[in-house]
């Protein structure tokens, strides 16, 4: 029984690293109340740790060191206006191809709004 609970806890932890702080509906419906609380607690304490070390987001999932500042992405959904760190804004319309700085694009790729075009 403990093994079952533990395995689920491990999966829940992984979800935070792969998807982010908010879980999509189809996954939320598979968790019981206590697991959702666990996820929230985990999320919160991870957030607090990241803040305490100077806001270096550990969850951006790069497998190799970044090679380029900008990456080309394909917009999968209408997103509207994206405001970037330096203040410039860009409208993301479905099926557009855009060059974005990696730091802006990565979280959107994780959420499924953008798709990285490689090559």
């Amino acid at each position, binding site marked *: 029984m403990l093994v079952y609970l533990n395995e689920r806890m491990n999966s829940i932890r992984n979800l935070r690293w792969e998807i982010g702080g908010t879980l999509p509906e189809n996954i939320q419906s598979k968790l019981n109340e*206590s697991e959702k609380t*666990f996820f929230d*607690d985990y999320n919160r*304490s991870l957030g607090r740790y990241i803040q305490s070390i100077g806001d270096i987001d550990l969850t951006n999932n790069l497998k190799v*060191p970044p*090679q380029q500042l900008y990456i080309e992405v394909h917009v999968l959904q209408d997103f509207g206006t994206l405001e970037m760190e330096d203040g410039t804004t860009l409208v993301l319309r479905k099926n557009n191809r855009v060059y974005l700085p990696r730091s802006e694009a990565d979280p959107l790729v994780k959420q499924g709004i953008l798709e990285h075009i490689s090559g």
Partner: protein
Amino acid sequence: ASGKVIVMESILDLSDSDESLYGDDGPFVNEDIQALRQAWINEQCSPEILIYKSNVVADVLEIMRHQESIIDEEKSNPESQFLRSICQIELERVKYLLQCYLRIRLKKIEDFYQTVLTNDKYRSRLSPEELTYANKYQEACFKHLDGNFLTYIPEQWRSLNEPNQNMVPSPNLNTHVFCRVKEDIGLYQLDEDARFDAVELNEGNIFILKYNPIKQL
């Protein structure tokens, strides 16, 4: 692993640029970043959590902040845009290294949270922030397990820390690791019962050894 044997890199090879960095007039890459890289490699290859390199992390953070401020300052200068891009990508890569180091440590803390918190040796190897994190994580785990299961079973089975049951995961100290010898050690007995021959550890040698016998080196 302290001074004499350093645990080497695994399959993830970031060293493709190493040759060009060590010119005859000395290394081009900043010493602190090298130290961080070594710390990360050691952490990656060792099954247990190693001591937190707070100086290295603090120094690297300072370098990063300094670089960031340079990048900001030069934002409006058209002549330095190219160099600025290079500085930016370099900053991203150093940030990546720092993220890797901290992330692998968090993972070890999470996987072995009970061992890490109860064992003084491991506790002392955590940074204060990591210790807070470990405690919070343990709280969250116990709350979840208690609520779901442990309160429903009889009192005598409730403890997660039963010493004679193997329920608390702890790092497997007998896995094999890569390592490179930094100083001449000479003959070193790997096996307590002297069933196997001793191994000659000389500077520059590279081995795959079981972690336990060599961990204090």
